[in-house]
């Protein structure tokens, strides 16, 4: 069961890679990059999971040593938290580029844009 989860996450990353390389529409390329972002975030969070683990927040009057031995890993969660917000900034930047492309060439099709650019 464990190795199947990792294989499925890599499959999601490969689907995103296919979307970036093989699609002609700019919006589909943007969606491919976002799928790669989701897959990487998910992989990082899944690495830090402890079986039947508790959240990394101490309840009141709890033994810290016992909680620290039963909690999930907080380090990947901290890195992924900022990565999610950076993914939103990345999406905004790509949408701005798509808007500019449409203003200049009138289409979202990459082959048309390459033909018109010359």
């Amino acid at each position, binding site marked *: 069961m464990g190795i199947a989860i990792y294989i499925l996450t890599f499959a999601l990353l490969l689907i995103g890679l296919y979307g970036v390389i093989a699609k002609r529409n700019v919006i589909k390329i943007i969606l491919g990059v976002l799928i790669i972002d989701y897959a990487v975030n998910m992989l990082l969070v899944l690495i830090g999971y402890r079986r039947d683990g508790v959240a990394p927040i101490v309840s*009141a009057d709890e033994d810290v040593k016992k909680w620290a031995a039963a909690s999930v890993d907080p380090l990947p969660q901290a890195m992924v*938290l900022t990565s999610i917000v950076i993914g939103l*900034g990345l999406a*905004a930047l790509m949408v701005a580029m798509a*808007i500019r492309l449409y203003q200049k060439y009138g289409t979202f099709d990459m082959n048309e844009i390459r033909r018109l650019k010359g």
Partner: protein
Amino acid sequence: MKQQHGMTSIVKNTARLVSGFIAIFGVYVALTGHLGPGGGFAGGVIVSSAGALIVLAFGRRLATKVITDEVVHVADALGASLFLLIAVLGFLTGAFFASFIPVGDLGHLKSAGTIPLSNLAILVKVGAGLLGAFLALSAFRLAGKEPSS
């Protein structure tokens, strides 16, 4: 009744009522980041979604009379500078980013050293930054639809 900018009056009144609560909730989530789930980044995106609600419901022209572009840009830069200031002030107790406020009792709001201040700085920075990007992107209109006025 002449149709103004933005959406219908039901949407506008609901947005007026709800966006204040969303913004307060975002500040709450950011300030109690050291006592429960959340923190500066989660609070920042919640505050920016409250601003996005106002921009969507009222149209960009009316919304920028209240949330002007200059205020958003200045808040963005202020948030980043505040975070850097907290880092540099750590030199007072020895090193970069060291905590210069004593660690208080556990579970109170005023505890955990510089973490609540850092959460506030990150809240301002992320909220204003994402709201500014949203404002810049909403200045464009779909071709073929005449502006409602």
